[in-house]
């Protein structure tokens, strides 16, 4: 159908704009898709051949040659496959548009904006969930109709990246277990040290979205994501996101965040945390390796970078939610599906990528990374949320224009907390509740 649209576009211009335009739209709607195509794992590694292009957001790893080294390793097992990398800085924006054509690489990370229900149109299936979930984590995130379409090469958990030295200077030895305790700790950091207790990364936007990943760790309920389709996340009694967002509000409102959030800088914040000028940031376990890198480059001790869970416990245990990074998938239009599949399998199972990033391995059998050792010691219970209704949650989210995984509403929250926007927290939550529940009715089914 794509061809039709392009042809129409070039032959129509001037004249009856609207009439031709409507015709164009009609063409876009028609046409079939290769539904149900599978990318099967090759039986003989020596025989599979072809040149595959891998789209990736890891521009740094392509530039410094790390990905090339992975490809060389891969070629030792699959000698006839040539792997090329296409590193894209604005990954989400660019790949989304490329996906209107058939030309979006052979292997790609599934962009976050693609509705889950559309996966079968764009990607070749990697197998059934029943079979894949025996070996791999995170399979539910890309499963549509029992078939899995992607596999994340690494997983992470959300949490506070913090400077251990600063926290112990303030006399804090234990992880806080409630939001109130956490606030008290920040207060202590503010009075006893010269550090900024908490840094929002407001201007860089995406760090604000990480707060949503705390959903589920307060109730320790694996259904937390599915429940978003039926319950109000900002309900006065028991709305999980309400508690999460209230903590962010309190941090800013009580003056524990940086003075001018509107001009924060992510790259510089890494160095500041490593130097102890910033005490805490809410990110993910993946950030640790970057903070340690920053510590090495400014000459402070990388071991000072710590990581702690959201301050909430159920039955005396923290329940951080594990979630996948970008999921790798095979383009349904790829001419070398076997080679593409081989790359995904090799990268997931054998590359050691997750390990090098200090993140959770996608293999169920692999041990946790060293950075999460304190978690094991503290008896933390890792949970993975049920994703059955993931597509529905996205639909409600878009319909309501709230954006659980977008920065906007949390930026508003911070603006309200620091008095730059005149609104009460109550009315802000009430508005979110209203929009969310209204969208549940119109888009939830």
């Amino acid at each position, binding site marked *: *159908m*794509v061809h039709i649209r392009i042809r129409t*576009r*070039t032959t*129509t*211009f*001037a004249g009856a*704009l*609207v009439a*031709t*335009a*409507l015709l*164009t*739209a*009609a063409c*876009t*709607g028609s*046409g079939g*898709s290769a539904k149900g195509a599978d990318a099967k794992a090759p039986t003989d590694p020596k025989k599979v051949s072809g040149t595959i292009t891998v789209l990736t957001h890891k521009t740094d790893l392509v530039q410094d040659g790390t990905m090339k080294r992975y490809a060389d390793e891969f070629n030792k097992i699959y000698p006839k496959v040539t792997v090329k990398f296409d590193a894209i800085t604005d990954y989400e*924006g660019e790949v*989304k548009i490329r*996906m*209107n054509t058939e030309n979006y690489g052979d292997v790609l990370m599934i962009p976050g*904006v*693609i*509705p889950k229900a*559309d996966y079968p*149109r764009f990607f070749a299936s990697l197998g059934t969930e029943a079979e894949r979930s025996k070996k791999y984590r995170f399979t539910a995130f890309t499963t549509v109709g029992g078939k899995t379409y992607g596999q994340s090469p690494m997983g992470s958990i959300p949490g506070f990246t913090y400077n251990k030295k600063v926290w112990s200077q303030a006399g804090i030895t234990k992880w806080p277990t409630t939001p109130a305790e956490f606030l008290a700790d920040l207060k202590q950091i503010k009075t006893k040290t010269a550090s900024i207790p908490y840094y929002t990364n*407001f*201007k860089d*936007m995406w760090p604000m979205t990480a707060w949503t990943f705390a959903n589920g760790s307060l109730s320790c309920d694996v259904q937390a994501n599915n429940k978003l389709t039926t319950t109000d996340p900002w309900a006065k009694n028991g709305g999980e996101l309400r508690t999460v967002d209230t903590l962010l509000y309190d941090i800013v409102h009580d003056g524990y965040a940086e*003075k*001018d959030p*509107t*001009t924060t800088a992510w790259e510089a914040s890494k160095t500041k945390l490593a130097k102890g000028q910033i005490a805490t940031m809410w990110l993910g376990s993946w950030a640790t390796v970057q903070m340690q890198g920053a510590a090495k480059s400014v000459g402070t001790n990388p071991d000072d970078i710590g990581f702690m869970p959201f301050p909430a416990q159920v039955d005396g245990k923290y329940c951080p939610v594990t979630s996948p990074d970008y999921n790798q998938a095979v383009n349904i239009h790829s001419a070398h599906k076997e080679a593409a599949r081989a790359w995904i399998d090799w990268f997931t199972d054998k590359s050691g990528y997750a390990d090098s990033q200090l993140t959770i391995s996608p293999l169920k059998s692999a041990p946790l990374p060293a950075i999460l050792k304190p978690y094991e010691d503290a008896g933390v219970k890792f949970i993975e949320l049920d994703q059955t209704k993931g597509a529905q949650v996205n639909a409600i*989210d*878009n319909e309501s*224009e709230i*954006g659980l995984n*977008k*920065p*906007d509403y949390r*930026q*508003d929250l911070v*603006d309200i907390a*620091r008095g*730059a*926007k005149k609104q009460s927290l109550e009315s802000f939550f009430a508005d979110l509740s209203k929009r969310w529940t209204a969208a549940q009715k119109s888009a939830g089914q």
Partner: protein
Amino acid sequence: MAQTTAHQAPPVQHAVRPAEAKAPARARRWRAVTPWLFLAAPLVLLGVFTYAPVANMIAYSFTDWDGISPELHYTGVENYTELFTRPALFQVFFVSAYYLAASVVQIVLALYFATILSFDIRFRNLFKGLLFFPYLINGVAIGFVFLYFFQDGGTLDTVLGLFGAGGHRAWLGTAESANSSMAGVSVWRYLGLNFVLFLGAIQSIPGELYEAAELDGANRWQQFRHIIAPSIRPILSLTVILSISGSLSAFEIPYIMTGGATGTETFVIQTVKLAFQFNKTGLASAAAIVLLLIILGVTWVQRRLVPDEKVDLV
């Protein structure tokens, strides 16, 4: 356009054949075709990159397309109904008021500098270059530069500190100061363009007029009032139109500097977010069409109020 190019006779034929009686007919035909040949390239570009996408956008505005899915449905005027039943979507035009106010400052300043620099003064070309330079810088780069400029304790605070007005200010911290700051950036950026337009118009005024005026004892202000101002009126009204449409569709500076946070969201930023954040491409296309109509409307009203008069000086 393709047809026009097909009519073009191959040059080889042209050279081999003797001219004879057919020449005048062919010459006439060439004369008819030549302007179209010159026009072909720009018209094709205009068609492919302006009108075809606009046609597509109009089409999308009547659908529920999410920007990704190959499937879309015709929904009639539903998107337009939704737009006009959500007044909150139009509240962002208040932000345009900041840019509108800034463009008044911008036009006055540009006019002032253009007038001064059209007379013979020292370092004239240097000043011209200095004023025009910001317009040559990429908008994204400007956004980043001014992000550091407005940082708490950044360049602006440091410079103010030199004059004893030190201290730390969050210039982008509140809606009012953020919008004023960014409107200031837009003045800095577009001043050069307005300035060059005015300068060109002023320099097309014949020099004898000033001489005659000076002989009659007119001072600089009188010369401006009665010679310069009336003769650049078409350019002035063009600039006003550009400024208004620019203010209504302000985008890159606020998008890069704040991403629309802290009450700096403009109509275009809002449209972009609808399309690319919430996958409502159909609705966003409708919003874009509405903005286009608003700008066309404002321009039309303005042309009615200030009709284009012919300038006749001599």
